[in-house]
């Protein structure tokens, strides 16, 4: 049985690896997220062979080109570190891809969508937007939650009542409207990614109420601890107390909330896409990839469109495992 700290380290390493792969999507993805192949709409994942129709074995994996696009049974070996479509990585231009096949052969690990775009590449590029959006919204929610929840818990009384009732108000509001309104009011020239991040930020701004409640609870109990009361007795200012003694106690909760909120905001994006507020074409995000399932013909006819959803499950499990481990560590650390 792994210790909780060990578990946390593993989870953190995995998440770091995912972030690295997603940030360098251009290298790992064989195609661009926008390249359309209009002859290859809704193709299932390309089968990768080691053995041809005659039963000959090959050391090098290869694919067959789709029917009608080349001579029958022509083999296209998968090459590694090949040159392909140009992309930018941290300001540099590059054409190097981890793998690829020569045209007219094609390799689509997760099939193609309705425009013949490579789903695998879109999944990797989509991660850039989704993980960034999740992080952004989470940070916004939590920073507001820390400030407001901290105040409410620390001062209590009228302020507490006001902030917590205000929180209820926020939970009840038709925030969908706000999003529609923001989207409609934006100028036309902001790029799709920016529009989307802005919408997600609005969601983050609205979503402070729940974490604020939790932080308020922690602060409430922290301020009654003996050493805080003692420090107050020595004449420490409120700000000093908050910064030095009370908020540090909430670190654990904040960190846990963060690991829980990031996947939640990534998923909330699915709902945004469901309402037509997702990231615009031709950009991809995990939310839009999942939301394409809402169309009945996709849902019922193209099983590979489920793959993004399937891949997200282990990823989110890692997030939740990290949250669990954090929680356990907090419990076991003597306060």
């Amino acid at each position, binding site marked *: 049985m792994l210790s909780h700290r060990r578990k946390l380290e593993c989870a953190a390493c995995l998440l770091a690896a995912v972030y690295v792969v997603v940030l360098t999507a251009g290298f790992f993805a064989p195609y661009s997220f926008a390249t359309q192949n209009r002859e290859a709409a809704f193709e299932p994942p390309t089968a990768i062979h080691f053995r041809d129709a005659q039963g000959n074995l090959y050391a090098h994996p290869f694919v067959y080109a789709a029917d009608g696009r080349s001579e029958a049974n022509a083999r296209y070996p998968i090459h590694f570190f090949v040159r392909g479509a140009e992309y930018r990585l941290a300001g540099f231009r590059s054409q190097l891809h981890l793998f690829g096949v020569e045209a007219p052969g094609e390799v689509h690990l997760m099939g193609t969508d309705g425009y013949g775009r490579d789903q695998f590449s879109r999944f990797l590029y989509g991660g850039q937007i989704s993980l960034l959006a999740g992080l952004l919204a989470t940070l916004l929610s939590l920073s507001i939650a820390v400030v407001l929840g901290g105040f409410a818990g620390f001062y209590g009384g009228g302020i507490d009542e006001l902030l917590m*009732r205000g929180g*209820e*108000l926020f*939970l*009840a*509001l*038709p925030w*969908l*409207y*706000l999003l*529609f*309104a923001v989207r*409609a*009011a934006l100028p036309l020239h902001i790029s799709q990614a920016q529009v989307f991040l802005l919408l997600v930020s609005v969601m983050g701004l609205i979503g402070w109420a729940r974490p604020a409640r939790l932080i308020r609870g922690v602060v409430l109990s922290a301020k009654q601890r003996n050493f805080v009361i003692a420090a107050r007795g020595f004449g420490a200012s409120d700000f000093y107390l908050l910064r030095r003694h009370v908020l540090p106690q909430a670190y654990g909760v904040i960190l846990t909330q963060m690991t829980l909120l990031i*996947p939640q905001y990534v*998923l909330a994006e*699915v*709902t945004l896409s*469901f*309402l037509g507020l997702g990231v615009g074409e031709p950009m991809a995000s995990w939310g839009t990839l*999942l*939301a394409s*399932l*809402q169309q009945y013909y996709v*849902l*019922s006819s193209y099983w590979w469109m*489920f793959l993004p*959803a399937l891949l*997200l*499950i282990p990823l*989110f*499990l890692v997030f*939740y*495992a990290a949250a669990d481990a954090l929680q356990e560590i907090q419990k076991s650390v003597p306060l």
Partner: protein
Amino acid sequence: MRYLARRLAHAALLLIGVSIFSFALLQLAPGDYFSQLALNPQISAHTVAGLRAEYGLDQPLVVRYAAWLRAILEGDFGVSLAYNSAVGPLLALRARNTILLTGTAMLLSWLLALPLGIWSAARRGTWGDRLGGFFISTLLTIPDLVLFLLLLLLAVRSGWFPTGSMVSGNFDELTTWNKVRDVLAHLILPAFGLALAALPPLVRHVRSAMMEALDAPFIRAARAHGIRERRVLLRYALPVAANPLISLFGFSIAGMLSASLLVEVILSWPGIGPLLVESILAKDVYVVIGTVMLSAVFLITGNLIADLMLFASDPRVRIE
């Protein structure tokens, strides 16, 4: 009693706040219900302007809000632009259906969550617990949308369930008993989906609350006295764990409501969800505001019920 009065006053203030915000938000998004007519080559701008004037959409926001507030006090929730009829009756029926669905789902989810949570807390650390935990976490990672769509696919493919709506077309001809059965048959899929979506956080909370309760010294003492495990769990530990669960109950009402929007739309349940989406897209202002107010009322009632239950079960709260 004073406590209750104070809570009700808060609720009223909250509702006023929600209504002001909703009105303001509605004003922000461009276009109105009649914008759609403007694109019809066979309808003149004059006609559209006339319609706007008739429904008072050309008035300033403050005037409209004041008129709306005055009407509310007389029990009139305004007029639906699309349906050309009063909003009140429109909402009442939809609200009934939503309550039926969320109520059933709520019951179902707690009926599943309590035994699961207690069971895994009692078997903490065993393979069974871990397997259960894994299952629950996996369920948590599946987006509601995908979950509901899968249920829909199941209904279509298997033919075991109706694929939406609340009753069959020949509902009127059924006997009372068959009517109940018909509604239940339509209810089962959305309610089950909703319960599944709400399950993971509930199970986790039940489990952790139970674990905390089981760690208390008096439980250890009870065990040492040789009291049967079953009795320890249900008779001693559960009441201790009840408090956080009761406040969770209030929260879960809110979560249930937002998830029910999706399930109602996907499985065509005639609740307030489809009405809200439809009216938001159509900019049918008074219906939107009415729906939002209604969900706010649900939310507040949920919290209030939870607090009152807490009040009844835990004497310490009463002193505060």
